[in-house]
């Protein structure tokens, strides 16, 4: 009996231990998210927001995908909803600012974007915000190949030039923008203008020599990211060499290189000529039998 008691007591203790372990595991901490917002406007027309969601794991930030966010303009309410987004593998999500919000946008010179995450099994609720002032950027290309960018901000009801803003003046290329000269950025003066000389004369453009100039403000605390483009005929005319219809090793049958056709045909004719001669030789041998 004593042994039975001991076994029963041991079993109960073990079960309690297991349930306790289980109970502790239920209280595991959720992760904390950090939400960053960025505002973009291209050519003073297309406005959009990007959100970047991260979390800290072992002291290092890691991108978090699959996080559902709600983006708002100025306040967290249904009427101010810009859109609902879900972050991708890089923890990023993008949403255009709908045209229907233009009235709300024009009502003030400064706006705050809000991003709200309402929490899930893994992460606690989190929010992020970004305040930007209404601004615009213009670009002008002079006949002496000078590029000028003008930056304005909305003050009360009119556009006013902004001094001391760093502007990048560049040429759009395939993968990145190439500064128009060795200077990486230009700062606006009291008239809101920043100018630079274009020193990329030999740069290839399109078939007509057109290239695209770009003036942009990057990650500005007050205005976000603004950019504007302008096409100018300052590049070298680029005529692409298309080998598609040429005689090449990778072309169609009819476009085989002449040297290959000549070489292959002459070898085939030579070898098969010998073979045909050897077959005809058999007929000669047969004929000799008849003569004999």
């Amino acid at each position: 009996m004593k042994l039975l008691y001991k076994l029963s007591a041991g079993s109960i203790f073990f079960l309690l231990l297991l349930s306790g372990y289980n109970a502790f595991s239920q209280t595991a901490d959720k992760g904390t998210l950090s939400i960053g917002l960025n505002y973009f406007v291209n050519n003073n027309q297309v406005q959009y927001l990007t959100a970047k969601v991260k979390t800290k794991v072992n002291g290092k930030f890691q991108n978090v995908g699959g996080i559902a966010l709600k983006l708002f303009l100025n306040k967290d309410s249904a009427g101010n909803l810009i859109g609902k987004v879900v972050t991708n593998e890089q923890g990023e999500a993008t949403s255009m600012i709908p045209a229907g919000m233009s009235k709300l946008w024009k009502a003030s010179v400064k706006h705050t974007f809000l991003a709200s995450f309402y929490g899930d099994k893994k992460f606690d609720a989190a929010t992020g915000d970004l305040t930007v002032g209404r601004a615009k950027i213009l670009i002008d290309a002079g006949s002496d190949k000078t590029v000028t960018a003008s930056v304005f901000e909305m003050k009360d009801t009119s556009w006013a030039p902004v001094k001391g803003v760093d502007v990048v003046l560049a040429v759009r290329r395939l993968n990145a923008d190439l500064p128009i000269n060795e200077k990486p950025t230009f700062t606006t003066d009291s008239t809101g203008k920043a100018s630079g000389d274009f020193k990329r004369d030999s740069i290839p453009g399109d078939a007509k020599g057109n290239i695209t100039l770009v003036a942009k403000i990057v990650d500005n605390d007050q205005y976000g990211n603004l950019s504007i483009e302008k096409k100018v005929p300052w590049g070298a005319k680029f005529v692409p060499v298309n080998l598609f219809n040429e005689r090449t090793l990778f072309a169609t049958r009819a476009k085989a290189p002449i040297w290959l056709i000549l070489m292959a045909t002459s070898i085939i004719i030579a070898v098969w000529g010998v073979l045909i001669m050897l077959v005809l030789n058999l007929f000669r041998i047969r004929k000799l039998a008849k003569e004999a």
Partner: protein
Amino acid sequence: MENSSLTIEKPMKSDALHEAPISAADEQIIQDLLPRKFTKSGWVWTGILMAICLVGAFAYYRQLRYGLVVTHMRDYVSWGIYISNFVFFVAISLVGSLITAVFRLAGVKWGAPLTRIAEMIAVAAIIFASIIIIVDMGSPERFYNLFLYGRIQSPIIWDVIVIATYFVISLLLLYYPLLPDIKILLGFKERSGARLYKFYSFLGSFWKGSHKQYLLSKKAINVLCIAIIPVAFTIHTVTSWLFATTYRPGWDSTNFGAYFIAGAFLVGAGSVVVAMYVFRRWYHLEKYITLNHFDKMGRMLVLLSLLYLYFNVNEFLTPFFKMKESESAYLKDLFTGSFAPVFWFAILTGIILPIIILVFKQGRRPLPMFIVGIMVVVGAWFKRYLIVTPTLLHPFLPMHDVPAMYRRYFPSWEEWAITMGSLAGAILIITLLCRIFPIIPIQETITERHHETTV
């Protein structure tokens, strides 16, 4: 002797021939070397081969009916066991040029009794190389499009042209030296039977053995011997280019042409050794295929094995030393991974053990030579499998979103049946050719004996 008017062509000093009544020694040679009817075991052998061919034909019927889906070739391994088999057949066919042409042009007299065997193997192999490439096509009824729309820039078209050329040359090289023998065969109507007699008459009744005919024939054989060597080199080089012109781990090699030719000579010589032993034993040809032949073929096999080993070292040592990221998975799979047992089996059985065995004189006796010949041929078949499959499983750019089964390859029963059927078919052709024609050139043997006695 069945035909008392039978004469043979005897050599004269001017290398021309004159006809003379046959002597008792000549008569003995003729009787020894005339084709013989199948015995019971011969019929059983032929029946087994035909049965394997029929199973292969049924599997091919299934492939035609249901498509290439009956095979286990998928997006990764799109050239499976069929192409391995094709390369194997092309390799074996090269023996015709080695034994017949190279030996003849080099004045190697001892190889004369082996020429017919080599040519028969070459013809059978090249026929099935052509067939197996059509089997690999999903829609063989569109084969003619290859000729109508094929691009001369493609190594596949070069291969088609070269195979057709090599087939005709091999056929002519088999046929021309047969003409004097056919004349002898026509003297034994009762022994050969009416049908075969008719066939012989169709093939060579016009051969009278006159001086002019002899000169024309000799010239033609010489031209063929010269022509077949570059064509033989081309056929296997172009076959290697089917792989080497494709940018893949294991195939991206400038060594491939020479590597393939060395391997082809080895497997071809190995197959001749196997055939020598079988024919010698089956038809009691000990007087004609002597120990000396085995000894010399053994020495040649050692040389060819060493040559092939050298190319293998070239082929694998340099990429192994560098172990480039893009090729490491392929090389590791070959050396220590899932293909390692087959790889080391092929290297040991097909190259290294033959060298060790054949270096010793006792190893060059008929039975050990026969075993080594089998080892070389089997090792060579697996070597071809290793050239094709592991590379296809390790592309530079892996495919995404493919089922897991695509990343492995083991042939389906249809593929095995068709492959075995093709191998049986090639052996069946050799068997039938031996039933119809003398295995050892009769006229040439008599001429050689006369030369020896006059010298």
